[in-house]
């Protein structure tokens, strides 16, 4: 088990560093210059050059990259060019919202996906199965932002059950937090839940044909135990795999959702930082997202190892 986790941990490092290198290069290759942005149209070439040198942007790219890597190791990601305060202080203010949004969306997607997958598999080819499967295809085809607007229109504008936008942190109370996070999380999770529904359904139908399910029934175990314990245990595994992929997808998709629902999250912060060519803040934001994704995937590997003893030995 420890060896397995060690191996998984080593595989995380490229997951974190490859996006970092890409973002680092892309930022510097794309047009636009932070010094020029900050000083505005009236600035002279000398002023811009002076600021560039002050920010260290006049050095060769590989030197900048090595300096930045050194910063990661020493937990100093530099100062935001726009906010003029350390990136390490800015990120936590935004990261919490995005992480909570992703976790709630993932939880909703898994609960909806497993429940609907189970219901459809148990009622194969009956009207409820056909209805849910058709809806799921529709759900997979719809973009999040469209679904977000639909949710706002129905539940916030028409029914007035939830606020249209804004954010209350969990410290404001679970009800206040839940009211502002539920619609965004649902909008973000619905496509993934449709995917998981289909995955769970086909996986459950496969598992129900397995001989060990026949054995469980032949032992006289009640159907609730046969399905709930013997079949679910193996049928849920592909869904866990999908959950890992979904987590990554949601962290990316959070950008649009955060903007629509005016959530002060990393996604919105990143979009604004890119617009301002705030290199250190963009890099810090991407690093944070990579780290969150890596940790989520490690957690999913652990869940996998708990669910399936066979992989602990591979």
């Amino acid at each position, binding site marked *: 088990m420890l060896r397995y986790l060690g191996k998984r941990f080593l595989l995380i490092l490229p997951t974190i560093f490859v996006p970092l290198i890409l973002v680092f290069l892309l930022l510097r290759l794309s047009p636009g210059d932070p010094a020029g942005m900050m000083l505005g149209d009236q600035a002279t070439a000398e002023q811009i050059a002076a600021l560039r040198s002050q920010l260290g942007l006049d050095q060769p790219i590989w030197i900048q990259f090595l300096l930045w890597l050194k910063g990661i190791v020493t937990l100093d990601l530099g100062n935001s060019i726009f906010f003029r305060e350390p990136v390490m202080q800015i990120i936590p203010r935004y990261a919490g919202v995005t992480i909570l949004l992703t976790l709630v969306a993932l939880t909703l997607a898994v609960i909806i996906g497993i429940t609907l997958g189970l219901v459809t598999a148990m009622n194969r080819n009956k009207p409820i199965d056909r209805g849910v499967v058709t809806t799921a295809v529709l759900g997979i085809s719809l973009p999040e932002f469209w679904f977000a607007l639909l949710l706002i229109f129905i539940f916030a504008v028409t029914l007035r059950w939830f606020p249209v936008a804004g954010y209350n942190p969990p410290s404001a109370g679970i009800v206040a937090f839940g009211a502002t996070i539920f619609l965004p999380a649902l909008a973000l999770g619905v496509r993934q839940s449709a995917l998981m529904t289909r995955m769970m359904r086909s996986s459950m139908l496969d598992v129900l044909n*397995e*001989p*060990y399910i026949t*054995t469980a029934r*032949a*032992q006289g*175990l009640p159907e609730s135990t046969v399905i709930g*314990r013997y079949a679910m245990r193996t049928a849920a595994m592909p869904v866990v795999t999908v959950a890992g992929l979904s987590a990554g997808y949601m962290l990316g998709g959070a950008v649009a959702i955060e903007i629509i629902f005016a959530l002060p999250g990393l996604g919105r912060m990143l979009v604004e930082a890119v617009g301002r060519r705030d290199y250190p803040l963009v890099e810090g934001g991407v690093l944070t997202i990579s780290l969150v994704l890596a940790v989520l995937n490690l957690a999913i590997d652990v869940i996998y190892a708990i669910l*399936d003893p066979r992989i602990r030995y591979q």
Partner: protein
Amino acid sequence: MTAHIASLPADRASPALDTRIVLEVEGLSLSLRNADGLLPIVTDVSFAIRQGEAVALVGESGCGKSITASAIMGIAPDNAEIGGTITLNGQAISGLSPRARRKLCGRHMGFIFQEPMTALHPTLSIGRQMTDTLRHNLGLSHAEATSRAAQLLDRVGIPRARDILKGYVHELSGGMRQRVMIALAISCGPSLVIADEPTTALDVTIQAQVLDLLDDMRRELDLAMLFITHDLEVVGDFCDRAVVMYAGDVVERGLSADIVRSPAHPYARGLIDAVPDHDDGRTRLTPILGTVPPVGQWPPGCRFAPRCNRVDAQCRTRPALELHGSTEARCWHPLEPSA
């Protein structure tokens, strides 16, 4: 009891056995309902098993023996239409609800499947699978169930039973897996054990050990045992009586010693000739030419007729299961009993 025996005049018990009948199958038929209507799979299967007796259900793949077992177990496919009666320990169970049938499983009937690697759960521990069954069927506490599970593993010849309980099926050898399956099948004290090709998936060297273990369990626990097999050596060595099936039909029925020594039905003869015999010096095996006709394409009359070398015009009508010599056979032209 006498009524049962009277209804099965030639389905004689083993000479040494005069015990109660545990399982009685009478006129069992099974059809699968599909888009085109009903597809008959098994027609008119009758046999009985007494306490302490092993009965073999013999036949090639696709002859309907496994689905017959699933009908007895009450786990036939949802689209199956089942006719006839199945009586377990004097209670007619064929008309019971699926829920009531499920309650008989484990407690009254135990099952051993062909491939223990896939028949045991891949990600639940051996102990969990055994204690789930023991706790549900016998109402034991967790501690009681665990110690009973360890005793059972010990009894089927598994060393370090307590450690094995914590392990998983992929950690065991093929023979050990089948021993676990046997322990699970007998765990709740059933009176009937149905073994569906229990040694087919095992190494030849392990097969004999597992067969011996099953035979020991039958004697020790006085079990009625239904052995589903295509191996006539197993039939001769381990079973008191045999029921030979072909294309969903019982074609021969009797004491297994009689059937192996002097079969009346040409199909049973063919099965025996297809087994290598180390004593008579034959160098080539005699195969049965042709294949079992697929369900839905059975010939009218005798279903074995297209593959039979004794066939004539009479075989176009369906023969009845009748006593010929020492066994019953469904044949117009049975073989003469050998001396």
